[in-house]
């Protein structure tokens, strides 16, 4: 620990003043000459290095996104099968072991291989260099390796479907002892492949994360201070720091469990009698694994949520033609939530058998984290207030996000409050809560973001009619899936049940509810295929996008070419003169002033001092 501390101290002392003393500039456009040399770029020479082993962050971003979405579709199909089993147990569609394997793979794919990879690997790679005004990431080669590691991780994960015993069915939390004992499907090969895949993912992600951190801190263009960065970059940046600090816990837990499984060590395995047979393990602590897992697992929620927060802030601001309300507070909230997220992990373990006195501490920290989160919601809706709201697709999805996230966030107050958690934990209430808050809500942001940035990536717009259908089905449909599910939780229906057959305490009508939820899930899932179709067909046939179609301020729309070419900025790097939220500035001719517009070009725009 002491080492790390030292490095941090050093890093702080190296801090360069962002604010050198003000000069009395006679010319308002005056910028000091560039002190830093332009970034060296790798130029590809062959088809392979251009299209496959690309080192261009934009391309890597798209590769990440496509791989993640492809894996996500598998996760979606698995959820269909699970829902069919729950609603129609009479069909005999699945074996219990298959059901549990699908539960596990669905969870792991959605959380790690879809959402984390998509937000950080996909949007992070595509947007960070463009929004910071850099030519590329700091270490393009490492960045490329990062993607290929991710791809290998995905392939290893998928390969577990084809090994004897199938993929692991230990639940996405992979708790020992059950993860590696014989009562669980996939306890031999499946779990090992899962752990190997996770280790690869963490290694690959660390390489990517290194790039995001260094690029955001060191490679911004002239005039781009940290506080002039769009919130998207702030969200991704802080999420990356969280990931770099939290993934090691998963790595450590994963490595130790691999050894427990392969070599028979007893890190997490206590003495147990499995299926009437004494195993050789002794003395290990399953709870220790849970601590490691959730020390990773809770920040992981924010690794997904913070980029979503950042992106949705920008979408709302741009499409409401108004500056984001309380920019500073938004940045503080992102940083604050990030810091606090390391002190709340054990709220996943209130009833896990840890020392019950921890409950007081973790309930308090958990409810404290609600305050900065609430601030973010207030600031989003206050950005709408007195705005000029364009109901474009990104805005629709953002509104959907606010409602969904609000719902999921508020039910978090139930589960975070230790007493309320006791009856509700491990029931469908939890399932409904986390799907709302870290499933649907971030996914709605993903959709909004794709509709928003698709023109920048392909130069064409997505089809609006298909988009509207997609939005309405997804937003209303997913609310219809998860809102009633909370009530199953109140009844006490436990989660991870292959079949909820007649039970004296479960009213038969609950089964009807299950059928309803399944039908809704099938419809919502099908709407996603419509979206995929839109993505593919619009790349060729979509309406040609004009430059900066949403009239946005941030730098990514100001490249000389659209879609931006290799190196992003042509000959001359952009110079930044303002923050990215100069929308509807009083006096200005247009309702937006891009970040690289010099003050002399907009002399009439005057902002009163607040």
């Amino acid at each position, binding site marked *: 620990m002491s080492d790390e501390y030292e490095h941090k101290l050093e890093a702080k002392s190296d801090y360069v003043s962002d604010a050198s003393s003000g000069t009395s500039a006679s010319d308002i456009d005056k910028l000091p000459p560039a002190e830093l040399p332009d970034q060296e770029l790798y130029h590809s020479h062959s088809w392979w290095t251009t299209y496959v082993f690309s080192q261009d962050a934009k391309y890597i971003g798209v590769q990440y996104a496509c791989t993640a979405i492809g894996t996500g579709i598998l996760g979606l199909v698995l959820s269909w099968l699970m829902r069919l089993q729950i609603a129609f147990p009479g069909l005999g569609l699945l074996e219990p072991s298959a059901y*549990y394997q699908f539960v596990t793979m669905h969870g792991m794919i959605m959380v790690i291989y879809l959402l984390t990879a998509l937000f950080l690997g996909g949007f992070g790679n595509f947007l960070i260099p463009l929004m910071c005004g850099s030519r590329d990431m700091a270490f393009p080669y490492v960045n490329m390796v990062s993607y290929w590691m991710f791809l290998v991780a995905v392939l290893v994960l998928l390969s577990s479907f084809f090994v004897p015993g199938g993929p692991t069915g230990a639940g996405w939390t992979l708790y020992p002892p059950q993860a590696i004992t014989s009562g669980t499907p996939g306890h031999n090969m499946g779990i090992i492949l899962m752990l190997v895949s996770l280790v690869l993912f963490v290694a690959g992600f660390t390489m990517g994360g290194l790039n995001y951190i260094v690029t955001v801190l060191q490679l911004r263009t002239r005039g781009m201070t940290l506080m002039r960065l769009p919130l998207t970059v702030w969200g991704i940046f802080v999420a990356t720091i969280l990931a770099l600090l939290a993934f090691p816990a998963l790595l450590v837990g994963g490595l130790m469990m691999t050894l427990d499984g392969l070599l028979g060590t007893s890190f997490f395995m206590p003495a147990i009698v499995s299926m009437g047979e004494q195993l050789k393990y002794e003395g290990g602590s399953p709870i220790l694994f849970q601590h490691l897992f959730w020390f990773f697992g809770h920040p992981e929620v924010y690794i997904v949520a913070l980029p979503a927060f950042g992106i949705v802030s920008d979408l709302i601001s741009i499409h409401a033609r108004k500056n984001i309300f309380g920019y500073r507070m938004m940045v503080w909230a992102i940083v604050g939530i990030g810091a606090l997220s390391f002190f709340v992990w054990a709220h996943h373990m209130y009833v896990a058998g840890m020392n019950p006195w921890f409950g007081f501490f973790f*309930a308090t920290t958990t409810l404290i984290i609600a305050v900065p989160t609430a601030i973010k919601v207030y600031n989003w809706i206050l950005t709408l207030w*007195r705005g000029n709201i364009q*109901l474009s697709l990104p805005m629709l999805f953002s509104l959907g996000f606010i409602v969904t996230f609000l719902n999921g966030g508020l039910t978090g107050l139930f589960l975070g409050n230790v007493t*309320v958690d006791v*009856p509700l934990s491990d029931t469908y209430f939890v399932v409904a809560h986390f799907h709302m808050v870290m499933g649907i809500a971030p996914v709605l942001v993903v959709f909004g973001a794709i509709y928003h940035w698709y023109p920048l990536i392909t130069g064409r717009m997505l089809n609006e009619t298909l988009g509207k259908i997609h939005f309405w089905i997804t937003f209303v449909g997913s609310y219809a899936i998860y809102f009633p599910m909370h009530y*199953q939780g109140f009844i*006490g229906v436990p989660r991870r049940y292959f079949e909820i057959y007649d039970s004296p305490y479960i009213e038969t009508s609950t089964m009807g509810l299950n059928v309803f939820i399944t039908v809704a899930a099938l419809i919502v899932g099908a709407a996603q295929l419509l979206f995929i179709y839109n993505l593919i067909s619009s790349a060729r046939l979509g309406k040609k996008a004009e430059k900066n179609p949403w009239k946005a301020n941030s730098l990514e729309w100001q490249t000389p070419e659209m879609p931006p070419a290799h190196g992003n900025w042509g000959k001359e790097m952009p110079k930044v003169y303002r923050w990215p939220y100069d929308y509807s500035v009083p006096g200005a001719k247009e309702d937006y002033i891009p970040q690289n517009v010099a003050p002399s070009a907009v002399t009439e725009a005057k902002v009163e001092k607040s």
Partner: protein
Amino acid sequence: MAVAIVILLIALGSIAFHFWSPWWWTPIASNWQGMDDTILLTFWITGFVFVAICAFVAYCVWKYRYQKNRIAEYKPEDKKLETRLILITTLGVIALLAPGLLVWNNYISVPDNAYKVEVVAYQWGWKFRLPGKDGVLGKTDIKLINDENPFGLNLEDSYGKDDLLVDEGELHLLLDRPVKFELRAIDVLHNFYVPQFRGKMDMVPGMITYYWITPTRIGEFEILCAEYCGTGHYAMRGLVIVDKEKEYNKWEAKQITFDKMFAKNKNNKNLQLAKNTK
């Protein structure tokens, strides 16, 4: 515009669903009314916030819809407003947290007059052990578990000899008497959960966890496992029957002590061996 109406409908529909849908919690059968009360409190506070914010969003979307000539307000921040909102939120959070922590304190502090019952979970079923006449549960160790000694009792601990072993997945409890469940698992994680009792706690091999309740209603209640424990998780059911003292005593008298069971098992085994050697 549709989106404003839909958001409003979602808020109102959620309220309507709450009142007119048949689904709500299972009637309680233990002393943990406090848990239900905190849920209700949380429900109303958060429900109010949900409806208020949804209504506000719907209003904004309708009132400030795009018009070519409209110019949005330029206001980077408003310190006063933000400070007020933070204060209100903090108060709300305290109102939620404080009662919650009080109930939690009760939940983890077992009253002195509680009698003990051990619950043993295995893949996939339930066993129980009562302390017997001396009122003390004997020591156990997973390493000692074998065919003759299915609970893994320590043979040298005399407290264990009169312990009553219940191996049929059915447990009787006394009405209105606080009971402390000592929870033990022998293979993987489990969780002893009776929806009507509200209480819940994981069972971890190698550890003894606990919680306590006071049954307040006579009846039969189903035990469910609430921590995923492998393929048979969903089928891991048991039964709790809350009795008045008379019926309870009748049931208790039928249970067999560890001493007797051990002797019987040993005999059986000897017989088995004798048969085999023939």
